[in-house]
């Protein structure tokens, strides 16, 4: 009996001791970072994405499946800026995996590498879902993706030095192709400059800043607070004085409020994929922006 227990314990320990890394196990909190790791890591990484494009990344629970994936992850790639504050700290703690604790090389946050916009001037929950560090939805500007790719490639090489040259060459190729794509998108999106829009949730700050769109109003009275009829009526009144071309919402958001306003103000509804997987065309990062620009151009007509 005792020897059997010893064998069992030995097996358990052998299973948990870090083996030579065949592939890097990566847990990405949101689809855009999962797609970026795929671009940079190719077949040297195995990516599990914690959320899909139909989910609000704020409101996820520390599900058993996420704890299990965090347990064997070599690297966690998160947005940070409090996007995942409700669930990621708990997932990391419950997984018992010390390699992916914040501050360790196995924990990567994207937000510190970009200039966060919309930093609140006062911190008060009376103002709704307030993010003290600024708006965390940084992926809606492709130039931010490029900014995050650089340190992420460095991190992959740091964790898996044997394949450093591989990550370097993938990074270089991605970087070149991406910068060219950004230039193309900017050219395509030129007519969008100054176009007036309404947003459902303040989720497109970076996209709006990048393309020079002009936000007239938000359907949510305060960030993260469900649209109310009284607020919608106010927005409608505003739109009658200062008409907008379209109302924007992310694929994961409910369609009720935008439909209500679109019908009455006679403006277009544009449903943006928001992240990779948000619609059929947004299969990868390139598809995400190809499709977003195409939809915006159509909405602006």
């Amino acid at each position: 009996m005792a020897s059997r227990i010893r064998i069992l314990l030995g097996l358990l320990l052998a299973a948990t001791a870090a083996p030579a890394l065949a592939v890097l196990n990566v847990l990405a909190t949101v689809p855009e970072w999962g797609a970026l790791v795929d671009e940079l890591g190719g077949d040297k990484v195995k990516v599990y994405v914690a959320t899909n494009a139909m989910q609000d990344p704020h409101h996820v629970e520390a599900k058993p499946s996420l704890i299990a994936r965090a347990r064997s992850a070599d690297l966690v790639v998160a947005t940070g800026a409090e996007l995942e504050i409700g669930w990621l700290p708990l997932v990391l703690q419950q997984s018992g995996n010390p390699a992916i604790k914040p501050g360790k090389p196995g924990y990567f946050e994207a937000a510190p590498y970009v200039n966060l916009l919309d930093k609140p001037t006062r911190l008060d929950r009376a103002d709704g879902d307030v993010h003290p560090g600024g708006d965390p939805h940084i992926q809606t500007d492709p130039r931010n993706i490029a900014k995050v790719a650089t340190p992420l490639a460095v991190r992959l090489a740091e964790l898996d030095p044997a394949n450093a040259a591989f990550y370097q060459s993938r990074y270089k190729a991605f970087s070149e192709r991406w910068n060219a794509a950004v230039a193309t998108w900017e050219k395509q999106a030129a007519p969008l400059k100054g176009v007036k829009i309404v947003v459902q949730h303040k989720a497109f700050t970076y996209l709006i800043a990048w393309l020079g769109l002009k936000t007239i109003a938000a359907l949510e009275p305060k960030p993260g607070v469900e649209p109310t009829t009284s607020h919608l009526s106010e927005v409608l009144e505003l739109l009658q004085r200062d008409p907008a071309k379209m109302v924007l919402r992310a694929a994961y958001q409910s369609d009720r409020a935008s439909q209500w306003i679109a019908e009455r103000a006679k403006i277009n509804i544009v449903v943006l994929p928001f992240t990779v997987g948000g619609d059929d065309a947004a299969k990868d990062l390139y598809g995400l922006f190809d499709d977003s620009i195409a939809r915006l151009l159509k909405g602006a007509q």
Partner: protein
Amino acid sequence: MSRFVFAPCAFALALAVSPALAAGEADLAEIREQIRQLKESYEARIQALEQRLQAAETKSAAAPPTAEALTASAPVASSTPASGIAAFNPAISAVLQGVYANMSQDPNRYAIAGFAPSGSIVPAKRGFSIAESELTLTANVDDKFYGNLTFSLSPENTVEVEEAYGLYTAAPYGLAPKFGRFLSGIGYLNDQHQHAWDFYDAPLVYQAFLGGQFQNNGLQVKWVAPADVFLEFGGEVGNGDSFPGNDRNKNGVGNGNAYVHVGGDVGSSSSWRAGASYLQTAAKDRTWTQTDLAGNDATLAFTGRSRIAVADFVWKWAPNGNAQDTSVKLQGEYFWRRESGDLTYATTDAAGVTQTGNYRSDQRGFYAQGVWQFMPTWRVGARYDWLNPGSVDYGANGLYLANGSFNPQRTAVMLDWTPSEFSRFRVQFQQAKLKPDLTDNEIFVQYILTLGAHGAHKF
């Protein structure tokens, strides 16, 4: 580099000099001070940037991607963190709760027929009252430990330490050791704080078998298997002073328990977790009052072992895993308890009979509940509770005592409104048949407000 430092200073100086001629000595001093501060802050920032650059260079030297990466991989300078002694303050959160209770039966006589009283399980007093308030402090202690302290403030103006534990966060092999006082990991609901429950009060099985919730004073070790499916093992030892055990003034280990949890996702819309737990503890002279066969009050004292097994299951559904508009949560737990040892029977009248005999009980019960979020911020739920007092063998005391075969039951419905993650209002109606021929109609109107640090979205 020095050009960057002095350019703004020179500019500030130029601005400052002309009006300073007219200004008094005090203004001059103030301007000098401002310039000094400006200079210092720029120097500090540039130093920090240089350090970052250096760090990035050394890092990239080990694994150099491109020249471009060297400069770009330094994080964007963020605002200076809070300084001074406040910088390391722990995260603080508080929960405020209140309830209006309307109960057709006297809550002072609250008891569950066929089950020994288990402690303070009375749901509320009649009328308006505040319910348990909670204050939590958490922080990383150092590179190896994390600490949590949760006070519970009762409406009777008493303060209890609900949880006070340390967590060893640097343990190898995925082990997560916890020590101190904490809510035990047995069952599903046990380690959740009351304000996180979907109903105002605890299920009957928790009230009857654990006296509400099982608090462990001791050690816990959890281990998650490195697999794609969630498989977690946990074990605890403690001093055994929580019901169904009691304080036995004893060295060594007073209670032990173990549990296993499995879970995962089904598609992108469903998640589930199932668990099995076993708890073993003991009591010495655990005393309560019970009516004997002659109809007199007798004092009973139990000394012996108490063993509990729990099976729990929870399943959650939301379209594509997005619970914004609609979601469903189903959960249930089944409890078994076996107690064996000696029971001392003592009459309280003048006759003064005292007798000790064997005692053995086998009891069980379950609850099942469902909660449906039918539109954003609104949920309805229903819960059914059932207990079986089972077989109780009083041994020699069978002369004086008998256990009925009445099954206590309770049915509850609730409606709650959650305007934000930080507030919730609930109305709950329930019909409890806890004693033969007595029906208690209970109405609770409850509020829960959360202040401070963002809470965790526990599954």
